[in-house]
Structure formats: C-alpha cells, structure tokens
C-alpha cells in the first residue's frame, strides 16, 4: 500500500515535469503556427527544419551550428586548461592550494548573470570587440572549474608510486606523463569535457552579455529574441523534440552502462 502511494507520487511529479515537453513534442507534428491548435498530422515542420524551408530558417540552423561549435571549442580548451591546472593544484599544498580552490569555486557559485555582466565590463574595459572570441573566452571561464573538479579526484585516487616507478625505470618525465599519468586521468577528463560541453550548450545569460552586436546567435539567444518578438518560430518545436530525445537516450544509455560497470565491479 505504501509502495503504491510512493510510486504514485513519483509518477505524478514526473507527469507534471514532462507535460510541457510532451506538449511541444505532440504539436511538432502539426503545421499550425499557433501552438495548441491541432490542424491534422503533418511532418512539414521537420522537413522545413532540415531543408531550411521556413521564414528565417537559415538563421535557426546557423544558431544550432554556433551553439555546437562554441560548446566544442570551449569544452576542449576548458579540458586542456583544467587538466593542467588540476595537476598543478594537486601538487600544491596548504594555503596556495586552498587559494586556488577558492578561486576555482567562484565561477560555479556566481549566478550566470554576474558572470555575464562582469565579463561584459571586462571586454568593454579592455576595448575588445565582442563576438565569437569573447563568447568562447567567457564559456571557458565558467566551464573550466568543472573540469578541475572532475580531474582532481582521479589524481588523489592515483597511486603516486606508479609515476615514480616509471621514472625510476628510465622513463623521461614527458613519457611518464603520457603513458602513466594521462591514462589514469582520462575518465576524469572525459566527464569534465562532457560537463563543460553541456554547461556551454545550456548557457544563455553569459552568451547574451558577451556576444556583442555582430548578430551572433546561439540557440538560447535565438529563442529569447524569437519569443520576445511574439511569434515563436514553429520549427523550434521539432528541434526541441529532437533535442529532448537525444538527451534522454544519451542519459539512459550512459546510466545503464554505468550501472552495469558498477555491478560487474561488485562481482
């Protein structure tokens, strides 16, 4: 009886959480410009989305491209910078280490709007024209702390003697780094990269303040401008549906794999 109540509660909450997403998905299969007005089944919005056959359609695709490109570049740089930084921080002691970790926490605690406004002021102050470069620098700023936090635990779990052993056995430090240290850090780097990538994909406020006036749009800023104009581009419905599905499948697969790995370890 208790179990029925408990599960009913979970499913009720889930139904509430997913109602808007399901709603968008359902209405992605009809042509009507107004949401909530069902004018019969049609895949036209999907066709439009992929062929660019819509009003302002090319700018929506461009926004998707920008979003992915910015996320990839920022996450790659953040992973590089964050991994090097984590190795450095791991070898620091006492106050210096605490200081670095404190600084590293700041971008994570700051709300997006503070990060956005403060970086906007920085670029104004330094007279840097805002565009792709400033957006990417801003994304690296708020992504790198997550990489540092993902890599640091791998360093402390690692047995330091392995690295020393490689050196004793005649490996050059660069070899020991590549052959011993990096493989140990790889899982942390991968999850740091994935975190950075999704953080960048999700961002709205920081991009909004650092994109300048050259008309650079990511998906978030596109949606924002579009919604403020009043009429939401109908092709956003199939796009959102596709994104929901991709995220859902990725997360379920990832979690099932993780669970299986955890179980096989336990056995």
């Amino acid at each position, binding site marked *: 009886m208790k179990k029925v109540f408990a*599960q009913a*509660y*979970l499913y009720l*909450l*889930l139904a*509430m*959480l*997913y*109602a*808007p*997403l399901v*709603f968008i998905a359902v209405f992605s299969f009809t042509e009507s410009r107004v949401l*909530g007005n069902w004018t019969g089944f049609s895949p036209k919005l999907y066709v439009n989305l992929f062929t660019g056959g819509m009003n302002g359609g090319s700018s929506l695709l461009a926004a998707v491209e920008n979003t992915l490109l910015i996320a990839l570049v920022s996450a790659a740089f953040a992973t590089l910078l964050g991994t*090097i*930084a984590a*190795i*450095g921080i791991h*070898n620091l002691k006492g106050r*210096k280490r605490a200081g*670095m970790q404190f*600084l*590293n926490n*700041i971008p*994570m*605690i700051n*709300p*997006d*709007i*503070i*990060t956005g*406004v*403060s*970086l906007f*002021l*920085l670029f104004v*102050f330094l007279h840097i024209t805002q565009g792709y470069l400033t957006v990417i*620098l*801003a994304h*690296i*700023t708020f992504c*790198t702390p997550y990489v*540092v*936090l993902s890599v640091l635990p791998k360093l402390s779990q690692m047995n*330091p003697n392995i690295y*020393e052993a490689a050196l004793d056995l005649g490996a050059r430090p660069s070899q020991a780094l590549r052959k011993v240290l990096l493989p140990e850090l790889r899982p942390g780097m991968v999850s740091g990269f994935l*975190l950075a990538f*999704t953080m960048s994909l*999700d961002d709205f*406020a920081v991009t909004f*303040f650092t994109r300048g006036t050259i008309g650079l749009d990511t998906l*978030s800023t596109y*949606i*924002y401008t579009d*919604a403020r104009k009043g009429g939401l581009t109908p092709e956003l419905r199939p796009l959102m549906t596709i*994104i929901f599905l991709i*995220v*859902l499948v990725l*997360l*379920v697969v990832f*979690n099932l794999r993780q669970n299986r790995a955890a179980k096989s370890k336990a056995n």
Partner: protein
Amino acid sequence: MTKRSTWSIPYLVFMIIFVVLPLVLIVLYAFQDGNGHFTFSNVTRFFTDSDSLSTFALSLEVAIENTLICILLGYPAAWILANRKFNRSAVTVTLFIMPMWINALMRTLATAELFNMLGFTLGKGTLLFGMVYDYIPFMIYPIYNILMKMDNSYMEAAEDLGATPWKVFWKVTVPLSMPGVMSGVLMVFMPTVSTFAISEFLTNNKIKLFGTIIQENINSSMWNYGAALAFIMLIIIGVSSLFGGERESSAEGGLI
C-alpha cells in the same frame, strides 16, 4: 612530482584576468559616475528608488517561495527514489535528472506555452509554478545523492533502540541529509533571484525580477547603475554562501 605545482600558474593567470578582474570591475563601475569619478550615487539610487526596491523584494519573495516549494515537493521524491523498497529503477532517477540537461529557456518556453493553451493568465501564479518546474530537479538531485550515500546502520540502530519509523525519519534521516538540502537551496535560491529571461517568459513581461533590471540597465548602456545592482547581488551571494559553506562543490562534482 612537486615541480608540477607550477602547472597551476597558467590557470591562475587566466582566473585573475577572467574571474577576479571582472569582479573588481563590477565594484569599480558601481562606484563611478559616467565620467569615471568616484560616487556613491549609484548605490544610493537603488535604496531610494521604490521601483528597484520593490522589484528586489519581489525577487527575494519569489526565490524564497520557490525554494520552499522545491524542498516540500522534492524531499519526498528524493527520499522515495533513494529508498530501495520503493524504487529500484535507475531509469526513474534519470528521468528526474534529465530536465537539468535541457536548456532552461526551452523548458520555460514550453511551460509558458502550455499555460497559455490551458487558458491560465500569465502572472505571479504561473511564474511560481514555472520556477518550480525549472528548479525542482536541482533540489531533488543533491538530496537523493546524500540519501544514497547515507549509512543505513544509523537508521537500523535507531529502530533497534525502539524509535518509531516517524521518529527515525525526523531524528536521524532528516538531520543527516541537511547538507544535501543546503546544496539544493544554493542551486535553487540564487539562480531564481538572478534569472531574467525566465520571469519574462512566464509572465508575458508583466513581472520583472531583479535580474531583468540588471539586464535592462546594462543593455541600455547604463553600465554604472547596472554594475551597482550586480554589486548588490554579489553581496547577497557572499552572505548566502557563508551560510551554505562549501558544500556546493561536492554536490556538483558527481553530476555525470
């Protein structure tokens, strides 16, 4: 390996330029007039402008209400999810976390459109509902996490010593899960105060929150007043993270 400590230097330089200097600039701009002279007028303007003050009060009110509702609805969900008697499915947990990985603007827009279609007038009610939609995963996840890590023998010991299930829950489970609740609060409260696009979508621009007036000032080139407002928000963050301690990092570290 001690020489490797120099590897932290590039990141230190990076952070000084892109984290510390920008925050210093907020303070600098907040205490300057348009010509670069030192002034308190931006800050005093906020405290004498009834519009800004009421927006600020409303933002705090919405943020507190949102955080409380998220705890009230989210804690039971996290508890059920973490309880092996009720839930053994990792997929259900994933379903609760999934919205965290989807662009908040998209989810908010979908919510606002649904409200529109159902015929609700967009206003404070829909704002609060929408905020809860947006932020409840951020409350459930850290609480779930800490409940999963909790050592069951504490609860069993309490039961063996004669505590009723109700007592075990309130005297053992809840106090031990407080760090999770605190990091949930940090992940819900500050983002709610500072949000700007979300409140506009959910209320059809009828209700402005604090983030919106910061954005409006910056976008209309009133940098100094915008910076002063951001400075006030910075102080609130400082105060609330003092209460929250450093638990935030532990909650986010294992997100994936």
